[in-house]
């Protein structure tokens, strides 16, 4: 398993280089809200022929052999993220005449995908965030070996075989997009107005949290994890981030393979760290009881002034720990009212900032948590060959161009290491992500996504019940023991 989770690191490394090259003294420039109408100038985001991929070359040929063909892709991206993907493939569609239909299924994504695959009516392509599930589909022959479609070296430079691989050396998925998860969103202007400094250590963060409460300025944290059948994953991300900081990356990787059980001093210590922030009276907006009862996209709403005027505004909550996929599309103005409702645009980098989730134990350095989406080329339901136009789309998405527009919108990091560094320059979010990864001393891939599905489900459900019970010692026992019990026998 250890070889399978490192491909995103190298990708993020490219961003580090990009920003390092661009600016000697990094002063990230703010990125405003790029609506779906804003088309970046410059040439079309498609690779020049020949690309080295047979079907892709064919598709980009002047005669457009696949014109009018339809390729379906099922994703978990909704709202702005879905629009970003559509923008990423728009130029390719125009150049080839292939119609790429994105089927966005939000929190039911994994279940819908499985029923479609089992029902022998799979989409042509699908994105999946859980490498463990990708491997399962691969071992069952439900997704195809993509080794012949991609240039594996573009994803693995320096890290050996760092793709989602099967027992026979097959490559079951194409790494597509990566996210840095060790990030906290906060209101820059409100911090400045109240004289709060961005905490760089856990002690500073604890002091700040206590100060916010004693100042009577609302709650330090915005936390919400309700996400339909996927409820729990945001809380497990928290625990993973803390585990990296308190137990260290070595123990963290043992934890993924269950060498280190949940019922261990390390996990209990990490839970105690989180419990202090979540269950202390007044620390979470709405109280800990609201964590599981509030939608995952809504926790940051109290952070914004409804009239767009930050002057004299005191946020209801001050810090929201969420990965880099989050952004202006999910801020309340846009999320609740659509693009037209954003008359008070909150600019990332000016109004809303991103800070590093501080390190806790100095001995464990400054770790970074990350995750990524993998593209599967699914085996057609009748067992026939994958159609050439599907291969062409998969090949296109494996190239940096497959994510170019999304990167230019300042919101994505490609898993492909040959992505031109200049593309990342100038985007606040990507600069912060690069900064975090650049300064980090160790990396961890999203642990729950790598655990067996039974354990992942027990982890999600267990931590949700733990929160609902207010993190009592009895609830802690129940939680850690239930995940250990759910772990499948080897």
């Amino acid at each position, binding site marked *: 398993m250890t070889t399978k989770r490192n491909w995103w690191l190298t990708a993020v490394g490219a961003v580090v280089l990009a920003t390092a090259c661009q600016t000697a003294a990094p002063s990230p420039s703010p990125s405003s809200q790029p609506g779906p109408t804003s088309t970046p100038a410059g040439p079309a985001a498609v690779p020049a022929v020949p690309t080295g991929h047979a079907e892709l070359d064919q598709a980009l040929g002047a005669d457009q052999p696949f014109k*009018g*063909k*339809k390729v379906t892709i099922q994703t978990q991206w909704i709202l702005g993220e879905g629009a970003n993907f559509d923008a990423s493939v728009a130029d390719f569609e125009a150049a080839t005449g292939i*119609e790429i239909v994105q089927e966005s299924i939000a929190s039911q994504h*994994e*279940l819908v995908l*499985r*029923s479609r695959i089992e029902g022998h*009516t799979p989409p042509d392509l699908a994105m999946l965030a859980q490498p463990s*599930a990708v491997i*399962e589909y691969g071992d*069952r022959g439900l997704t195809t070996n993509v080794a012949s479609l991609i240039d594996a070296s573009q994803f693995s430079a320096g890290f050996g075989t760092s793709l989602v691989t099967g027992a026979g050396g097959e490559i079951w998925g194409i790494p597509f997009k990566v996210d840095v998860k060790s990030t906290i969103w906060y209101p820059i202007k409100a911090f400045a107005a109240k004289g709060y400094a961005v905490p760089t250590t856990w002690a500073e963060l604890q002091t700040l949290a206590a100060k916010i409460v004693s100042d009577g300025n609302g709650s330090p944290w915005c936390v919400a994890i309700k996400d*339909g*059948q996927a*409820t*729990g994953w945001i809380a497990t991300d928290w625990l993973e981030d803390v585990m990296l900081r308190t137990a260290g990356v070595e123990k963290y990787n043992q934890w993924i393979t269950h060498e280190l059980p949940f019922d261990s001093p390390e996990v209990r210590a990490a839970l105690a760290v989180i419990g202090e922030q979540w269950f202390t009276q007044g620390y979470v*907006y*709405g*109280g800990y*009881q*609201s964590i*599981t*009862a509030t939608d995952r996209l809504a926790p940051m709403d109290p952070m914004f002034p409804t009239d767009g005027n930050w002057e004299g505004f005191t946020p209801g909550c001050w810090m929201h720990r969420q990965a880099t996929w989050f952004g202006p599309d999910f801020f309340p103005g846009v999320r609740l009212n659509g693009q037209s409702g954003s008359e008070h645009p909150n600019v990332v980098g000016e109004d809303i900032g991103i800070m590093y989730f501080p390190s806790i134990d100095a001995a464990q350095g400054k770790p970074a948590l990350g995750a990524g989406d993998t593209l599967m080329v699914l085996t057609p*339901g*009748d067992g026939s060959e994958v159609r050439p136009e599907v291969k062409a789309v998969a090949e296109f998405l494996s190239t940096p161009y497959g994510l170019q527009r999304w990167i230019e919108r300042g919101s994505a990091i490609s898993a492909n290491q040959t992505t031109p560094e200049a593309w990342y320059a100038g985007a606040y979010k990507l600069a912060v992500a690069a900064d975090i990864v650049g300064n980090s001393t160790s990396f961890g891939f999203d642990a729950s996504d790598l655990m*067996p*599905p*039974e354990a992942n*489900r*027990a982890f999600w*459900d267990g931590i*949700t*019940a733990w929160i*609902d*019970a207010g993190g009592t010692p009895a609830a802690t026992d129940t939680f850690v023991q*239930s995940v250990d*019990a*759910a772990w*499948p026998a080897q």
Partner: protein
Amino acid sequence: MATTSRDTVEISPLRRFAPPLAAVLGLVIVAIGVGILADRNAASNLMASIYDALGNTQGAVALRNGAGDQLAAKLVLGVLALFVGVGGIWMLFVGVSAIVGLLSPRWQGRILPWVFIVPAMALLTVFLIYPTVGTIVTSLTVQTNGDPLAHYKALFSPQYLGLIQNNLTWLIVGTGGSVLIGLLIAGLVDRVKREALAKTFIFLPLAISFVGASVIWRFMYEWQPGGQPQIGLLNAVVTSVGAGPIRWVQDQPLNTYALILIFIWLQTGFAMVVLSAAIKGVSIEVIEAARLDGASERQIFTRVIVPIIKGSIITVATTIAIVVLKIFDIIYVMTGGRDGTNVIANRMFQEFYEFFNDGRAAALGTVLFIAVLPVMFVNVRNLRKQGIGS
């Protein structure tokens, strides 16, 4: 046309050959129809052929590529399915029965029942018996590591016993609540002037699906932090009398009962209608006699009416028990099985769709099937006793 042929003494050649013709035609229609419908891209291909025939080559090509008038194609397919499913089958039945009608009366009596029962039996075998056997086989052979009973042994671990415990709570509280409240209302509305109106209100929820009801009850149970406006009805009531809002679906063990309440709300109407009809069937003489003997109204209800309608109560209880044992939708929509609310059916769904544990899912399905069997046995026996279905 075919059915009237029997009445005529002199059979004209046309009438003589019409039934077999109809049968053959029906068979051909069904065969062609099934052939078309079995194709994965039936809708597009059928519409494309129509377009080709009409000379709209462009439209046909677009459809074959998975684009074009998909909605029109689906509508045409729907009409075809209706034509084949209703028209074709009808012609087949009428034709075959007419053919049998040409035989001697002795053979007619022997063959005719089979003509009508064989298609139903074939469908039951394909869609019910085959999957049942398949599920049991899967539970004994898939992912078992050599021990056929591995999945069943694993069910004795605490994480599965907890599910069974929840199912038992559902069985007892859900069934008991629906039947008792249904019985109570049936007894009470018997004395009400606008009985039909009162019954309609109780009966209405039965028309709502479990999923729909769960969505409705989400708004009933909605929780907001104390001090904020409560948009959930129950918490709005609770906070208006000064108490703090209650997290109905998060707090254990309250949440399981909150979910069962949704079920009772849905099923009480069914219990009430059946039991109300049974109460109406109790002869007035018996009640008059009890009254003359000095029984109070309450005694009449509990000691006279209830024993008389016992058969109906058992029927209602077993029918609801079968539904409640298989309960899935409410848990899936409301909590996803979190916070200690999970039940066997939802776990089965998770084992299959999330965990890729096909064998374990099949074992859970088999356990549910076996658990329902005795209840069904009681149900059927009781129906027989009442003279229904014997």
